[in-house]
């Protein structure tokens, strides 16, 4: 037992960590982790500062649109404190045991932390999510406020990204637009995973007739170009955020195929055969044995699908079937901006960049996850 790990030192460091997350790590010389905690702390402190500055911290009595962000901010603080504390304790124990036995996920996370692509992607997504959660604190005003006198004003100190054709602040709309982008992209993808995953699991596990039926359904839906299918259905139900989520969620069935093939390969493995031999119920086999093995590819597909969904929504907005105005969405902003391309470039450039960077983030994360999760790669 080294000097650092005697009981007093451990208690002292843990207390330090409770005082200020990351301090305990730094005292122990784990600079990277400690500074990372400090970075988080600084970001959240900044957010808190902005919230107080703009008077938008709201308790139960405040305007309802600020509740969510306020609650999340304090939740984040709590999580950061606890996380730093428990992480320190775990790390101390781990360094004590000198264990070399590593689980699959530990290997994965080790590999991941060494892959710059994945870190960049994760960073981009984290920032976008963070902005989405705390949008009211970051935004200068709100995304809807019009100024019909100073419309189309170029970027200035007060409006760093300029004003659009209704005199709305482009930066504010971009900030609130993160919510729409992630909302549609994320929720639709969750639905994709649910429906697609379900069909894929059923088809792959049971094979035979259910599989044939499911595969034909998939082929029917896949054979029409996705955009055309969505266009048909959106013009059926009328555009809008709910329609978009449901349509993208139900008809984006690509995950089904991938999961099916994964399940097909897994179900022939010895341990599944063994589980069946001892008479384990089917549902249990699926949940306990098949699903965890398919998770890796599920994760990759999920990340990429979010990016695809954001792009599809932008395309639909371009064709006039996006979210309903005046809701701020990047795709709709881009669509509105194209007419102003030559007269107000700021309207077009910034939302465009946001889409590109965000989708890029999801894609590069997916790419990296594929490498990292691939069990064959060394």
């Amino acid at each position, binding site marked *: 037992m080294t000097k650092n790990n005697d009981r007093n030192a451990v208690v002292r460091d843990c207390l330090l960590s409770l005082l200020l997350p990351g301090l305990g790590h730094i005292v122990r010389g784990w600079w990277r982790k400690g500074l990372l905690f400090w970075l988080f702390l600084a970001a959240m402190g900044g957010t808190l500062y902005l919230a107080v500055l703009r008077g938008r911290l709201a308790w139960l009595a405040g305007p309802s649109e600020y509740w969510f962000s306020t609650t999340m901010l304090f939740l984040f603080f709590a999580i950061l404190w606890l996380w730093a504390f428990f992480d320190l304790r775990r790390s101390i124990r781990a360094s004590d045991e000198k264990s070399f036995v590593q689980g699959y996920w530990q290997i994965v996370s080790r590999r991941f932390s060494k892959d710059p692509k994945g870190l960049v992607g994760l960073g981009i997504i984290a920032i976008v999510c963070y902005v989405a959660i705390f949008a009211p604190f970051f935004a200068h005003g709100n995304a809807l406020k019009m100024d019909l006198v100073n*419309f189309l004003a170029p970027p200035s100190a007060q409006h760093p990204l300029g004003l659009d054709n209704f005199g709305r602040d482009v930066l504010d709309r971009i900030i609130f637009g993160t919510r729409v982008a992630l909302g549609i992209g994320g929720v639709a993808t969750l639905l994709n995973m649910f429906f697609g995953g379900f069909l894929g699991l059923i088809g792959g596990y049971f094979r035979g007739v259910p599989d044939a039926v499911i595969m034909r359904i998939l082929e029917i839906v896949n054979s029409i170009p996705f955009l055309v299918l969505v266009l048909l259905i959106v013009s059926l139900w009328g555009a809008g955020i709910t329609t978009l989520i449901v349509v993208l969620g139900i008809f984006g069935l690509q995950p089904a195929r991938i999961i099916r093939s994964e399940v097909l390969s897994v179900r022939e493995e010895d341990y599944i055969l063994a589980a069946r031999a001892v008479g384990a119920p089917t549902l249990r086999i699926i949940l306990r044995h098949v699903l965890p093995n398919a998770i890796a590819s599920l994760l990759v597909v999920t990340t990429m699908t979010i990016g695809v969904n954001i792009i599809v929504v932008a395309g639909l907005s371009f064709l006039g079937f996006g979210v*309903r*105005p*005046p809701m701020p969405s990047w795709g709709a902003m881009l669509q509105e901006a*194209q*007419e102003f391309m030559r007269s107000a470039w700021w309207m077009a450039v910034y939302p465009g960049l946001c889409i590109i960077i965000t989708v890029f983030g999801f894609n590069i994360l997916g790419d990296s996850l594929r490498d990292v999760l691939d069990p064959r790669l060394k």
Partner: protein
Amino acid sequence: MRRAVVLASVALLVFGLVVIAETNIPETPGAHVGGTVTVGVSQTFIDMDPRVMNSVYDGYIVDSVFDDLVSLDQETLAPIPCVAKAWEVAEDGSETTFYLNEGIKFHNGEDLTAEDVAYTFNWIIDPANGSPNATEYEWMQEAVVIDDYTVKIINKPEWTPYCPGIVSESASIVPMDTCEEMGPEQFNLTPVGSGPYKFVEWLASDHITLERNEDYWLVYPNLDKIIFRPIPNLATMMLELEAGGVDVVDMMPAQDVARFQADPNVVVQQVPSLTYFHVSFNHSHLPSSDIRFRKACILSVDADAAIFSIFQGLTGIRAYGVTPAALWANDREYLQSVALEEDDAEAVRLFNELKAEGIIPEGFETTIYCPLDPRRTQLATIVATNLQENGINAQVQPLDWGPLLDLLYRSEADPLGEDVEIFVMGWSGGPDPDNFIYYLYTTENAVIGTANNYSWYSNPEVDRLVKEAATVPGCDQTTREALYVEAQRIAFVEDLADMMGYHYIETQGVLARVHDYTLNALGDIEFCSPQCNVWVDE
């Protein structure tokens, strides 16, 4: 919208024989003969047969391929001779006799005679043919051939006299024998007219080519070829104009006007159009049938600022009544003086009052419906934002024509159109107030399934005034104007029929190499007519 139908009925207000001396096309000295003009058009073409054509964009082609019975003066919009060299209106207004020019030949060499003229009109009004243009001839009984070059058009008794006019531009004259031979479908694809340019080819979605009609009866057309290219994306079309890829664009948004005005290669042409676009209410159910709701909505929006931000004072002006500013009986001064100003406090008070009475139900949400058109979507967005600020949860739903018309016209299944409280639509008509107020605000036009009066506004007094104005004996314009003014004041000042509106200013970009190209209020594109003969630099 830009109304799909070009129903340019012409006011033939003068009774008795009208004979105008031979038309003289102003010859520009130094006009160059030859060359090609390419026109960028913002919609894909559908029909080439003038009898069924109902889109302004198809009208561009039809204008050059066919001759009209009478043409319109570009300044006054009064009828001037074209195929008809003179006409005579009966004293009681029950019929009109047209005397045709002789020696007009269709592109296939046949003569244009009274038979063709009568055939054209009778075909349109025959219900069996289902022509969408039949509405404009509701008043017409039939067209009768008197001799080879004389034709008589007879009114229905209940439409005698029919003051707004008896000639519609959608009635370009088609050759009877050729039409019967080809059948309507084929004629729609390969139209044969008597106009200055001949139809050559129609490459699906890509372009339509016309070439000079060497034997044009009126004058020798200057251009060798005209190419019409549909370019569905407005941003693309503006880039094309900037790059010089097209010579004419049929539409230019406000934000590009100043830029192109400064560009020496481009001439921006503008003319106030005969259009009325409006944010309107559904008057058939609560809460929008309650005048306090309508008033509160009107008070919520600074209409001047809204319209200025969209048109920048360049491509549209605010409307106070339905009659376009370019037309008589618009009563603008009075209507402007009594127009309601923005007053958010009063609006909120009214909304609260309605909420307290339960007329605005709890959790009330409304959707403002508009077509897939940037201008009207922008207007709807401003209205929705302002309503949100005053405590009415409003969102905008741009829809394509199919579902939009379903909603506004209603169906037997949903006769109340429960979903619609506020919507943005538009109308374009001919040079007579009747074309606007009759279709949009009378009970006769509030018919489930095809309503032109899609706001379901109904006031017997307005109905009476409008009908009376259309059939004033002798068609005295002063009398008619007084009636329209009164009807308009009832609808817009007393009943607050609409929330706000604008008249579009037709704006087109033309390269400087194109000469003698002029716009008229109907939005026609004419390259060779009794008034102009477009030419280009070598």
